[in-house]
């Protein structure tokens, strides 16, 4: 009897243990969070006092989620090492792998947030960030001064709290710019040179040049010449969608054109039709790449990097890497010039705009952060000019030199700065990208961005670029564009949060879907069939409740005018 009951006892013990292990794994998520935030508040209160007075550097870890794919810096990275030595902070960064929506969904479902997270309306909607306004007021004088003029804009339109510190768009001092990062019709420098640097203003002139060049040089380096490339892949779809608004002299407002404070969707308007009809015509002539609508971003970049693509509509930052590759291959003549094309010469181009605050981007502090005060203080410290220079220019003497108070680079330093492997060991690029930062110029007048320092830009120009610029009588490629007029208060409409799951968002998704489906069809159709595809397309759009989308934008434009005007 004894033996048997012992066995039974053993088994029940095993079962009990299994059960308890299994059950301890689940449940209780919410309580834990609540407790954590409470604790955070407590420790924050006590901590802030001690860390200030002590003067001793206590090491602490900050985990950060970067919402784009990237590479980990090397363990002995120069800048991160300095940050650790002087502030005690070390960063544990997680880069996006895979799909951002999926990743955010998983993070939200599990309430699994690192301390710092790059901005996302999804995370805001899920209540993943803590409000920052009080923290900044109390602990972060540098940040407060930095954002002073933009304070109201940073407030979330839904509840009036500040959740995210925008990473770009706050300017100080004189703003030099010699690099245009925005949208344009791009054309190879070689094409302009071939035709003796003509002035290209309109869409027709542009395609005319490409057509002539392609006829003259059917092959480049042994591969067939591609006249025009359109990328329409995943969220990088503006190459197909956005051109019409620019062609009528309107700046980039995303999916709508705003006239006198009233927004309207332009996807189905006549001036859009005009553009796609032109593309249809060009396709018939074989100017447009046959594969253009089936390629993914990698294939697109590979084509641009090969130097066989004469032109495309895109944002400069999107294909920057391909240009770098062309430069490395020493094919400067195959890099691109951005042209602000319009339909007719009487229209003034408005591609270039004054920088706007990059809302919904940058860092927010999550509700799981154990010590928000420490983090905001760290961010505040890093806002200091000394750190800003270190992030942007690097270490004096190593990464740049100072001549008569002006920052310059030697050729070696220039080459280093463009070298991706070197960057991983010597720059805190991915972190700095999302940190609040000084833009424009420092108090000593130097540009915050090496590429924008006029002397540095001139010195770094290749002979080929000098020739192109001299031919046009310009100082930099930015001069191809008209000077931007002041931005309207609400600008840009593309940064309006449509609210996840709202009718407006669904309508915008639908619209997107229809454009992705019908526009390629229209462009690839036989010219005689273009009109029937277009009619089909506009009819579908009418069914898609775009009114809800326009209404939401208009409501927010009104809100911005009321709340952002000074």
């Amino acid at each position, binding site marked *: 009897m004894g033996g048997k009951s012992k*066995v*039974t006892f053993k*088994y*029940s013990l*095993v*079962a009990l243990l*299994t*059960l308890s292990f*299994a059950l301890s794994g*689940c449940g209780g998520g*919410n309580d834990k969070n609540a407790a954590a935030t409470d604790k955070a508040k407590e420790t924050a209160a006590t901590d802030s006092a001690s860390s200030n007075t002590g003067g001793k550097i206590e090491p602490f870890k900050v985990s950060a989620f970067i919402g784009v794919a990237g590479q980990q810096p090397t363990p002995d990275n120069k800048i991160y090492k300095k940050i650790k030595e002087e502030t005690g902070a070390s960063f544990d960064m997680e880069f996006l792998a895979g799909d951002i*929506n*999926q990743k955010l*969904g998983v993070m*939200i*479902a599990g*309430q699994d947030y690192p301390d710092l997270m790059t901005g996302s309306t*999804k995370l805001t*909607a*899920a*209540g*993943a960030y803590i409000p920052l306004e009080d923290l900044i007021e109390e602990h972060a004088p540098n940040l407060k001064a930095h954002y002073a003029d933009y304070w109201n804009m940073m407030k979330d339109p839904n509840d009036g709290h500040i959740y995210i510190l925008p990473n770009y768009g706050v300017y100080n001092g004189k703003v030099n710019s010699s690099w245009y990062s925005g949208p344009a019709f791009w054309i190879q420098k070689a094409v302009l040179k071939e035709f003796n640097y003509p002035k290209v203003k309109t869409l027709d002139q542009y395609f005319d040049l490409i057509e002539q060049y392609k006829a003259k040089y059917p092959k480049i380096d042994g*591969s*067939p010449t591609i006249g025009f490339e359109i990328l*329409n*892949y995943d969220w990088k779809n503006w190459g197909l969608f956005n051109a019409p608004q620019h062609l009528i002299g309107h700046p980039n407002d995303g999916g709508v054109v705003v006239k006198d404070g009233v927004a309207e969707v332009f996807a189905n308007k006549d001036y859009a039709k005009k553009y796609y009809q032109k593309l249809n015509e060009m396709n018939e002539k074989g100017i447009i790449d*046959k*594969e253009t*609508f*089936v390629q*993914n971003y*990698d*294939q697109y970049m590979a084509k641009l990097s090969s130097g066989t693509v004469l032109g495309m509509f895109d944002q400069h930052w999107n294909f920057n890497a391909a240009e770098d590759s062309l430069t490395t291959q020493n094919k400067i003549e195959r890099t691109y010039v951005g042209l602000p094309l319009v339909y007719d010469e009487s229209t003034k181009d408005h591609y270039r705009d004054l920088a706007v605050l990059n809302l919904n981007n940058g860092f927010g502090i999550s509700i799981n952060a154990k010590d928000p005060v420490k983090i905001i203080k760290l961010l505040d410290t890093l806002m200091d000019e000394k750190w800003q220079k270190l992030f942007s220019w690097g270490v004096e003497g190593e990464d740049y030199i100072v001549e008569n108070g002006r920052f310059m680079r030697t050729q070696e330093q220039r080459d280093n700065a463009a070298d991706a492997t070197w960057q991983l060991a010597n720059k805190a690029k991915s972190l700095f990208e999302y940190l609040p930062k000084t833009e424009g110029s420092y108090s000593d007048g130097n540009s915050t961005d090496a590429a924008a320092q006029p002397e540095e830009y001139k010195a770094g120009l290749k002979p080929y670029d000098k020739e192109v610029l001299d031919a046009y009588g310009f100082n930099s490629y930015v001069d191809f564009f008209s000077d931007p007029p002041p931005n309207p208060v609400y600008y840009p409409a593309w940064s309006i949060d449509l609210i*996840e*799951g709202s009718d407006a*968002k*669904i309508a915008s*998704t639908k619209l997107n*879907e229809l454009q*992705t*489906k*019908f*526009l*390629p*069809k229209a462009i*690839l159709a036989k010219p005689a069939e273009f009109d029937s595809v277009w009619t089909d397309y506009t009819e579908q759009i009418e069914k898609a409740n775009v009114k809800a989308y326009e209404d939401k934008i208009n409501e927010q434009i009104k809100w911005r005018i009321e709340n952002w005007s000074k």
Partner: protein
Amino acid sequence: MDETLEIDTGVRRPKKNKRKKQPITWRVIKNQNQLIWMSVPLMLYIILFAYVPVWGWTMAFQNYRPAKSFGEQEWVGLKQFKFLFTDDNFIRVLRNTLAMGVINLILGFVTAIVLALLLNEIKKVFWKRTVQTISYLPHFLSWIIVTGIVATSLSINDGIVNIVLMKLHLIKEPILWLSEGKYFWGIVGASHVWKEVGWNTIIYLAAIASIDPALYEAAEIDGANRYKKMMHVTLPGIKATIVILMIMSIGHVLEAGFEVQYLLGNGLVVDWAETIDIFVLKYGLAQGNYSLATAGGIFKTVVSVTLLLMANGISKRLGEERLL
């Protein structure tokens, strides 16, 4: 799903008879208490990971907002299902899912069985192993790599498919495979076959290995050639395995996939490429509408279970092996 499954069809019937003779009494339970205790952790595992998550289905009837507690959620009844079923795209999406699911199912079965039969005929072990290894290696590649390979080989510049077809004078001009909806299902099916055929073959080879060699000898004595042995010994020998795997796979018909279609699809073929999963991603997850995503999941599960039961029932009628 089918990787590790081992079906021992011999045991089934005797066990059933035994059960009839011996009703479950306290004595039986006492006698088998070790067995019962041993099954407890597994039961817990199943309850935890297969049944507890079903609780999440409540989300489909709410306007679920993360970070709010269960009590705070807003209940909306069948709204999400209504959105799902009344959307213009739903029929199209369902058609694509079913079509690609069925294509994958049939192609997958036929190719795996044929390959297994052929492999079985190879007498040199070295060659058999080599072919087997080469054919199952793609299984370990992720879809993102496979779709990359597929897209590259279908490209009109230097794509191997077009080059081969041109050299064979089957086509005059390179075909832009990924721009035509009518090719899309075929491409997806072919990619699946390339990736999974070797892996799916393993289980059939195992089943073939368990066929009594005496049967082959007998067949030989009766004058059967290779082909006849294949038809009358090998195939009937693995019939049970085929039927069981078929029943299980039918339950997965709606899992036509997500990655292939998402990664290979584009605006031109969207009418043929979009599956339920992609639709749910677009209007559910990407919109932060987790409820809709759940509703989509429930729909898929219900259809899958129905199909599974139907297949099982038909199989029973026909007097074949059954799963349940």
